[in-house]
């Protein structure tokens, strides 16, 4: 085919005829944004985000515009940018959703509250603290004393009458747990850069800046004027709120990264900028706002009048508390410092501690919780009152103060109503001390020192007397000097100081890398508040009311000291319950949302085109799939993938125009539709409109991904587990050999809960006095030595879920340990001749495109092996194959996808009848048979003995139907038969394969047979030689000849179709050892239980139903002392000490294993089988499969 010449962004490139502009651009390494395009689907062109400019044709959607010779394309100019931006502006103008929760949005430091609450829910305190510390290095401190704007913004307030989620309590709990831990969270520190930073002031800002800069490899030295670090945290906040030892501990988490703190060093005093300039590459001024302001009332110079902060500081500096016994102490002010002052005064023995405040309680800036505590502690309030004058006695000591009543007038600039004095309402209040907690000022008395020693600019103060620094970068007039915290903003909060420190640290880092300091880029966030004010009705229904776990505190009578008042949450459980109150306002897809990513890139303005918007209740009626139409951008990928790939058409578009939305195609809920719960719709959604209905709080948190192979059905899909420290948050399909487009089924997508289950068996157990008890490996050794009889016939069973490596090690074990007389696998216990070659020559999955006809003999393919079902559907819808379902049971969801459905009574009779017809009419492909098969005559004479019409009758079809079915099959050039071992007995399987042989279709391209096994590694179990003599093993098992039984990874009792028989046979043994992840019914009668490794913990390989071996690495940290492989080695070495050691490091397939992979039988052999047995176990004898099957069934029942 001739290449086309295309001019792409000015350069001539070669295009392939038929490809779209998008494909061409991608091939040339250009990313074009698109929301509605999905590689798995045909071009659709609804979002118009992928537009490019085509010369002469204006902007065109690149996803559906095919290239043409000489086409001139521009993917990146202003016109294109503007069009994409407007498409996004318009989409976002109708995206009634929050990207991030208001708590994070409101936090000055932007701490990811929803994320860490999600981790606390999973008791991952270490991870929670790591997440918090990305934005706030002082969680234990902030968990105690933060003013918590997050809680004011929390939407829980709407539901529980002003009871926000206890965000700070949770943070404190996690931080305390982390600090308690010997291995508390410590961030990685980069290699030293050789750069040095001087930080002036060891308050929250200085400490935080050091924390981040040190991580970047810059050496930070903090200079602190006081004797101890902490700044306001130590000298302003009283101990009963923030104990010094806790403060010290948290400061240590900063210094342990390498920063040094030099105390009693005051800039402009005993430390000169001259030296700093010489020794350091950059300076950060985090000096705080340390000067208290007095009352500005007549007589305030009297003895006994302090500024509140001096009062608090003095006590900390001297270590002495004031003696206020019997005194009356008046605190003027309504902020948090005032609260600290009045409560401290009380603790200093004051008889009366009074707050004087000029507005009402409603206007008080102090935290409500603080106000609450003052009242509990007996603080008196004089509201709407203002000091006029301080009256002192002759000695100049305070005697009383004159106060005046106030009333509230019109609102002032701050929006609060301005207090106005009530004329003539003055009165006197007798008192002994007055604490003025009405404000602080920045004290920058080192200005001269800096400016005289600097020749690269000038440090200046702004009109409020604070340090003048660039608002966005916090760089001062001197390029190498930065400033942060109260010293810049004036008195503010700790969390604001931390936020500023982060900005300054970011700027300093850029400065040190010789870059122009720039603000930290902000991502686009969509906000519900841009559309409407949230009210409780928006949340009721989905969430129930649930009051908050209040913080346990010291008894109100036990407060005359400085011990910490708040005691912290009592237990994990309280914390987890409180975490559950989180409404998860932020979107679970935030880190994966294309819409959000593009919105940031194209600088979207959500309110530019604001107007009507779609508001719909979130549909979470489906147990696994959640539909949030508020977020939907109508790309229809979900609708299309459900129709085109799955064939279910469970989703549709309802209404027209702006009112269009996605809804189940039939009925109210997806549950009532043709939905097969595969979850492909979730994988298709480019934003958060269709998500997993997770059973836990999904965060979102940033996860790590490990690639592996689905541990369920035998298809072998590549998947990716997204986990945080072993807790799996979700599973996604990835592009693999089997599933090149990343499609996966419901097991792979949703059945990962077992990995997160907390009741995993992680230690060996021994039955003592009828009860299983945890034991050490030494004890296991003793028990085995003691109980196992080397002369008793012993059986080893291995499950189809195990890795080839485990299976190989077990086979080796069975060969090496003389007592092992039998090896087998329960889920293949019924296996016989009919099974042997069933998977030997299968049509590869990538040959579906040319298949013309499929006889589908997998009556539950849509539920059990949906990924294969997708291939069948694609063959039908994209390549016009005729798919005939031949089934013995009802399955309307599958039937509606078929070209034709033939209802039969018996698969084996059906195939026998067909083959009978074929042979009796001499319609066999002799050329093929002569070449491949020797057994034809024997087979023919045997089969033709049967009565054709009786066979037809038993099959449930007429003779004509049989002959018609055969003829349409036979005449089809590329005809495929799909069989499932779960539903076809051996006789049927053998005959199905014989039909392929007799017609010469076996082994032909896009033709022949696909046989589906039950478990992810059923084939491996066969290949590794575990089931080579299975009929004898089966007989011995039911004859109860096995006296000692080892079962690895199977639960025969819990899954047996005939539980009594299986249990009796197992119970007849003298010793039972079982290895599994969780308790199961077989374990209930076991003598010894071993913990099993998850495949993701040991890595290895699975062999799929087409004998394709796929390897994967270990990704999750093992929770076991000895992993499964080590356990087998342990057993082998214990039970056959004189044989060569069994390696416990079989991590990948090795050469030794290969001989066993080969099958000796002629793959083209005609097999004659009358065996009508099916598997004797449900769920392929696998506990995990059973757990999910049960969970799935239960989920749809309730």
């Amino acid at each position, binding site marked *: 085919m001739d290449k086309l010449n295309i001019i792409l962004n000015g350069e001539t490139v070669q295009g392939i005829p038929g490809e779209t502009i998008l494909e061409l651009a991608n091939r040339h390494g250009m990313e074009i944004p698109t929301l509605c395009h999905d590689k798995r689907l045909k*071009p*659709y*062109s*609804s*979002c*118009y*985000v992928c*537009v490019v400019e085509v010369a002469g044709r*204006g*902007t065109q*959607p690149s996803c*559906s*515009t*095919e290239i043409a010779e000489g086409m001139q394309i521009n993917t990146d100019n202003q016109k294109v940018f*503007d*069009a994409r931006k*407007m*498409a996004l502006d*318009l*989409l976002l*103008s*109708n995206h009634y959703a929050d990207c991030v929760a208001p708590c994070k949005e409101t936090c000055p430091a932007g701490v990811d509250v929803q994320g860490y609450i999600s981790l606390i829910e999973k008791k991952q305190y270490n991870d929670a603290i790591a997440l918090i510390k990305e934005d706030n290095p002082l969680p234990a401190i902030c968990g105690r004393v933060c003013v918590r704007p997050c809680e004011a913004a929390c939407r829980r307030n709407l539901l529980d009458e002003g009871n926000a989620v206890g965000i700070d309590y949770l943070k404190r709990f996690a931080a305390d747990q982390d600090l308690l831990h010997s291995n508390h969270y410590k961030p990685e520190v980069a290699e030293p850069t050789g750069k040095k930073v001087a930080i002036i002031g060891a308050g929250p800002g200085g400490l935080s800046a050091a924390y981040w800069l040190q991580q970047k490899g810059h050496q930070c030295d903090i200079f602190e004027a006081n004797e101890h670090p902490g700044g306001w945290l130590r000298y302003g906040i009283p101990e009963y709120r923030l104990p010094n030892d806790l403060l010290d501990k948290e400061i240590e988490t900063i210094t342990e990264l390498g920063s040094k703190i030099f105390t009693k060093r005051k800039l402009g005093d005993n430390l000169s900028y001259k030296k700093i300039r010489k020794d350091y590459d950059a300076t950060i001024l985090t000096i705080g706002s340390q000067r208290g302001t007095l009352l500005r009332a007549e007589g305030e110079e009297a003895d006994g009048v302090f500024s509140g902060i001096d009062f608090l500081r003095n006590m900390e500096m001297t270590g002495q508390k004031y003696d206020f016994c019997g005194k009356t102490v008046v605190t003027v002010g309504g902020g948090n410092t005032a609260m600290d002052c009045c409560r401290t005064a009380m603790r200093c023995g004051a008889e009366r501690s009074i707050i004087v405040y000029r507005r009402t309680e409603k206007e008080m800036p102090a935290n409500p919780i603080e106000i609450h505590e003052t009242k509990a502690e007996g603080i008196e309030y004089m509201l709407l009152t203002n000091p006029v004058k301080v009256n002192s006695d002759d000695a100049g000591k305070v005697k009383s103060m004159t106060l005046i009543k106030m009333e509230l007038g019109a609102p002032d600039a701050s929006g609060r109503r301005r207090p106005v004095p009530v004329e003539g309402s003055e009165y006197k209040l007798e008192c002994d001390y007055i604490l003025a907690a009405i404000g602080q000022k920045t004290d920058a008395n080192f200005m001269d020192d800096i400016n005289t020693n600097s020749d690269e600019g000038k440090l200046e103060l702004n009109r409020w007397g604070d340090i003048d620094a660039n608002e966005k970068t916090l760089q001062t007039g001197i390029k190498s000097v930065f400033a942060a915290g109260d010293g810049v903003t004036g008195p503010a909060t700790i969390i604001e100081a931390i936020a500023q420190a982060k900005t300054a640290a970011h700027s300093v880092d850029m400065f040190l890398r010789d870059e122009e300091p720039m603000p930290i880029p902000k991502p686009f966030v969509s906000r519900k508040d841009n559309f409407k004010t949230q009210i409780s009705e928006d949340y009721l229904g989905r969430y129930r009311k649930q009051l908050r776990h209040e913080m346990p505190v010291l008894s109100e009578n036990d407060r005359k000291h400085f011990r910490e008042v708040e005691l912290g949450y009592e237990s994990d459980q309280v914390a987890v319950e409180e975490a559950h109150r989180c409404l998860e306002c932020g979107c679970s897809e935030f880190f994966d949302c294309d819409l959000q990513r593009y919105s940031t890139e194209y600088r979207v303005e959500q309110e530019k*085109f604001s*107007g*009507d918007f779609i508001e719909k209740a979130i549909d979470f009626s489906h147990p696994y799939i959640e539909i949030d139409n508020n977020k939907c*951008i*109508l790309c*229809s990928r979900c609708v299309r993938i459900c129709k085109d790939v799955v064939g279910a058409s469970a989703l*549709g*578009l309802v*209404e*027209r*125009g*702006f*009112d*269009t939305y996605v809804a189940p195609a039939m009925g109210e809920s997806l549950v009532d539709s043709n939905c097969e719960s595969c979850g492909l719709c979730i994988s298709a959604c480019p934003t958060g409109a269709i998500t997993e209905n997770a059973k836990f709080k999904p965060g979102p948190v940033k996860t790590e991904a490990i690639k592996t192979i689905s541990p369920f059905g035998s298809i072998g899909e590549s998947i990716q587990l997204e986990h945080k420290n072993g807790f799996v948050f979700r599973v996604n399909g990835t592009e693999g050999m089997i599933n090149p487009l990343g499609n996966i089924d419901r097991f792979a997508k949703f059945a990962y809960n077992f990995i997160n289950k907390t009741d995993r068996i992680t230690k060996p157990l021994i039955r003592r006095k009828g009860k299983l008890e945890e034991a050490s490996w030494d004890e296991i050794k003793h028990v085995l030595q003691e109980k196992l009889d080397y002369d008793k016939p012993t059986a080893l069973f291995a499950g189809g879920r195990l890795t080839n490596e485990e299976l190989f090690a077990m086979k080796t074990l069975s060969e090496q340990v003389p007592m092992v007389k039998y090896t087998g696998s329960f889920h293949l216990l019924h296996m016989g001749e009919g099974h042997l070659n069933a998977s030997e020559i299968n049509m590869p999955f990538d040959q579906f495109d040319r298949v013309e006809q499929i006889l589908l003999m997998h009556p539950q393919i849509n539920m059990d092996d949906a990924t294969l079902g997708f291939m069948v559907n694609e063959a039908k819808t994209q390549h016009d194959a005729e798919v005939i379902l031949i089934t013995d049971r009802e399955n309307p969801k599958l039937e509606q996808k078929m070209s034709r459905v033939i209802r039969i009574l018996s698969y084996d009779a059906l195939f026998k009848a067909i083959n009978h017809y074929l042979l009796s009419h001499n319609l066999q492909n002799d050329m093929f048979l002569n070449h491949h098969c020797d057994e034809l005559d024997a087979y023919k004479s045997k089969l033709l003995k049967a009565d054709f019409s009786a066979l037809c009758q038993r099959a449930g079809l007429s003779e004509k139907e049989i002959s018609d079915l055969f003829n349409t099959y036979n005449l089809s050039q590329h005809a495929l038969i799909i069989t499932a071992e779960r539903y076809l007995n051996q006789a049927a399987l053998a005959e199905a394969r014989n039909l392929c042989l007799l017609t010469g279709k076996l082994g032909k391209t896009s033709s022949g047979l696909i046989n589906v096994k039950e478990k992810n590694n059923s084939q491996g179990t066969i290949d590794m030689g575990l089931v080579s003599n299975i009929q004898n093993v089966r007989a011995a098992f039911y004859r109860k000849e096995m006296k000692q039984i080892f079962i690895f990874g199977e639960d025969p009792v819990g899954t047996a179709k005939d539980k009594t028989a299986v249990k009796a046979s197992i119970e007849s043994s003298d010793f039972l050892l079982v290895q599994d992840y969780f308790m199961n019914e077989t374990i209930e009668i076991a003598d010894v239980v071993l913990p099993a490794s998850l495949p993701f913990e040991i890595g290895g390989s699975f062999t799929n139903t087409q004998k394709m071996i796929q390897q994967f690495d270990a990704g999750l940290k093992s929770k076991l002392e000895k992993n499964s492989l080590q356990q087998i080695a342990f057993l082998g070495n214990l039970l056959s000490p004189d044989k060569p050691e069994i390696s416990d490091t079989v991590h990948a397939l090795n050469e030794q294993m290969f001989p066993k992979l080969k099958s000796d039988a002629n793959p083209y052999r005609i097999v004659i089988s009358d065996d009508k047995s099916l598997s004797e176990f449900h769920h392929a004898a696998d506990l995990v499969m059973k757990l999910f099957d049960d969970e799935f069934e239960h989920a749809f029942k309730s």
Partner: protein
Amino acid sequence: MGKTKVIVGLGSCGIAAGAKKTFEKIQALKKTENLDFELKQTSCIGMCYNEPLVEIIDDDGHYLYGGIDEDKAMEVIEKHVVQHEPLKDYVVQSDLFETMDDVFFDDQVKIALRNCGYIDPESLEEAENTGAYQAMNKIQKDNIDGDAIIQSVLDSGLRGRGGGGFPTGKKWVFAKNSESDEKYIICNADEGDPGAFMDRSLLEGDPHAVLEGMMIGAYAIGAQQGVIYCRAEYPLAIKRLNIAIEQAREKGYLGENACGIDGFSFDIYVKKGAGAFVCGEETALMASVEGERGMPRKRPPFPAVKGLWGKPTNINNVETWANVPWIIREGAQEYAKYGTENSKGTKVFALTGKIKHGGLVEVPMGMSIRDIVFKLGGGILNNKAFKAVQLGGPSGGCIPAYMADTIVDYDSVNATGAIMGSGGLVVMDETTCMVDMARFFLDFTTKESCGKCTFCRVGTKRMLEILTRITKGDGKEGDIEKLEELAYKVKENSLCGLGQTAPNPVLTTIKYFRDEYDAHIRDKKCPAKVCTELITYVVDEEKCTGCTVCAKNCPVDAISGERKQIHFVDQNVCIQCGVCYTKCNFDAIKLL
């Protein structure tokens, strides 16, 4: 002496005006009085403003009576049929003498509408008598091949009458050249523009013309199956189509070896559309025929390559198809005699709005809008001032009165920012608010957007919101610019014609009537006094007689005043409903 024929126009317009009753009355008369005349039906002749129409043909000639209700029917039958005394006062057209209404027909050239209003549409015989299937007979007899037919259509200069104006012959060439064992012919009869009824009248009046056109197309490109996609709101058209299809099958025009041509197998069925405007877009139409949600897809591939069921498909609209047999029968040169350089032949227009002679006209391309409005249309209703015409429905644009000399051909109309469209021509006078008019059309397109692509779904909605707030007096500075910004982007970045043209009414009204927008936004005034929120109703003290009618009828008691005293409207209470204005018998309520 031949039998007198009495023919009643029973098109949808006639029926709506009461023609059915008229017909039944005449039928009853004929029976009870045992009168000897032939009573027949026909369809719309285009003179909708004179419905119900009754035509009487006797030996003297033909007389078209207008506005014939049941009473007048009696009178006309009595006088004309029984007493042979034609009632000249009621005659709107005759071949014996001139009438006032002759101007309506004088400049028309009827090609597509050649039989409409003249034949009984349910009679194949009458159709055949006026030339139906002669083109197919000619093809069969003269053994004309597909290429020759297509050449004729190319030579005729016929362009798609659905609005796109794409040369019909070229389209056929594409479809013919697409290799496939199966091909389709579609007649797009999903006429949905507000105020347009060309297709309906044609299908009701001369269904065989359309069928024959499709047969010619099918024969030319090699199609076996035809589909007429007709909106379900046209029950009479569907009924007559089905009758005609059945007649054509019986007569062998459809089916195996259709029209006696060996190996030409062709049949047609009618697919009812569910009423979505966007299904008039060809790719959405095909999706709808296939049973999918009516949503367009990106072209190319064009239907000629990949159309219905993925097979090559040729889609033309009703009027285009109706022209085809005439062209084959009379010759391409005959057709090309009419029209302008690039726009040949005639065009059917549905005249509506503030015009005296509302109805259906067919004029040669090149006639000026002024002539259509003032000659054929008889001028503006109530002799108000002519303000503009809206051409092309919601996809089109307005052409202001000062540009009324614009001639109707594709290029001239496009140059104004409007489009020829399928033929809807809405006339507006001084009482039309152009902002409100743009809002009206955009409201239509916004509601009819299928919801697929972003700009059409959300962009038109946002434009509508801005227009709505302007008409409510909440317009802001910058709104016009925002409208323009949106309009250009929506035009360029929409998937199908609906979105690509939806901003046209807005853009053309801004272009020609920007001052009206400014008046709404800056002065909070609606110059045409249409936007209720911007109207102030006051009492004209000179004219008020104190009759109290306004006060009594005011639903919110905003009007006060003693009997025989001048009344007063309390503007704080008034809701601008306009009841006082319509109720006042003395024109004493003024709009400010």
